[in-house]
């Protein structure tokens, strides 16, 4: 107990993902030692994103406009939609510079244990986009874990017969050594091996 406002700052920082009490203390003391403008810059940045950034009305990605830059871009292929769980996954797929289609951000994955059901994700909006026509392929890029797989299965079932549905392959990281691959990943890669 140093001062109520420091305690409050520590408590707020602890709520961030991956930050424990010890890290929160370090961050709080670091901020106290900085100049006032420097510390305020962080506060302003937080306020600004909360005021300006919202979800794209079409795909659910983060944007400062009604519709995000990707959805507005005339060069993108409008016949392909890549379905991801979170906006950060869009960033990952974009980094490949291989994908030229559009996105659909679900906002999470199905998990009844956490009370998350199809109605809580932007799944209805995805079906509507397919319904509206012009979509020839939906790429399911949900996480390769249990809830991600269940979400992908659910969407694939519902879209069957309406458009082509594909799922990201799972396998080995490129540039790595087989020696360092865990057995489960290597086992999946072996199951998904291809003819050469």
């Amino acid at each position, binding site marked *: 107990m140093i001062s109520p406002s420091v305690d409050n700052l520590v408590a707020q920082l602890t709520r961030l993902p991956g930050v424990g009490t010890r890290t929160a203390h370090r961050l709080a003391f670091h901020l106290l030692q900085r100049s006032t403008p420097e510390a305020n810059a962080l506060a302003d940045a937080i306020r600004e994103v909360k005021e300006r950034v919202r979800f794209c009305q079409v795909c659910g990605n983060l944007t400062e406009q009604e519709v995000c830059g990707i959805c507005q871009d005339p060069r993108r292929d409008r016949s392909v939609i890549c379905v991801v769980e979170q906006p950060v996954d869009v960033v990952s797929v974009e980094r490949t510079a291989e994908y030229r289609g559009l996105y659909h951000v679900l906002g999470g994955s*199905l*998990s*009844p*244990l956490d*009370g998350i*059901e*199809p*109605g809580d994700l932007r799944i209805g909006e995805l079906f509507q986009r397919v319904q509206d026509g012009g979509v020839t392929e939906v790429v399911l890029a949900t996480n390769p874990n*249990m*809830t991600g*797989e*269940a*979400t992908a*299965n*659910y969407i694939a*079932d519902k879209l069957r017969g309406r458009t082509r549905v594909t799922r990201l392959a799972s396998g080995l990281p490129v540039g790595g050594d087989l020696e360092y691959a*865990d*057995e*489960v990943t*290597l*086992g*999946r890669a*072996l199951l998904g091996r291809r003819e050469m």
Partner: protein
Amino acid sequence: MLAVGPNGAGKTNLLEAVHLATQGFSPRTRADAELVRFGTAGARVAVQGTRHGTPFEVELTIRPGEGKRAKLNGAALRTAEQLRAELPALVFTPDRLVVVKGSPAARRAYFDRALARLLPSRSSLPVEYAAAVGQRNAALRRVAARLSDSEALAPWTAQVAELGAALVTAREEAIAILAPAFAVKAAALGLPEGRLDYTGKVPTVEALEARLQRDIDRGITGLGPHLDDVGIRSGDRDLRSYGSQGEQRLAVLSLVLAEADCLAERRGGGPLLLLDDVLSELDRTRREALVQLLPANGQTLMTSTAADALAVEPGQLLVVSHGRVRVG
């Protein structure tokens, strides 16, 4: 190696430390703070050895509040549990009798761990299946509470069916690998016609749909390998209910020895065997039989209160007293 010493000298503690250093966790408890001596800041185990003829070093430290850190040959591991895949070890402790005489859940847990060691690429299946059942049960209760409809249940029924079928197959394979070796070890220890029986119930989507209303009423998935059991028999006699304490002990020991052989064959090197207090309950003939059954290309560490429990070379004898160990 035979570790001898009076009760309370620290023999089991030595075994536990070796297990911790090779597997990343204690066979006795998952609460790592319990492994730190009262009044000290942390615990550390360092082990040197050879595997497949090449030397290795492990160092594991526990600091309450900071967790466990493990290094293999000087390189830090992401988690201490990764050691398990590197340095296989099997353990027998007197409380392992629950594998035979305990609830089906204890047997499922034991055979699922054996599955993970024998079929490493499928080691995550039991956990994934349990998570799918947990999600489906949560969905069932939401349907019962009218928070949700049966359509939201469908993806979880599909997951339980898919992972359940894979788990049943993996368990059948693991038990098919273990069963012949189990029969051989059990016979040598005087338990004739040892058998392991497993008939998994594959939860197909149709079968799950057929009992949907009952599942919704009870709020749990009432079909699938999370309810299976493994029969452990001698001839037609079920040792789970009709085995004597001695027979149940021999059955557990036979399981450990059988798995050691299977691992040695599949991985090209025997696992480390840690046998706690196994000799005291065996007569002389069985003690000698046990020594013959130990894997030839692996190492075994046993504890005993009596130095004459087994005939060993002086270099194989560890004398434990007051928490200190010296080579006898």
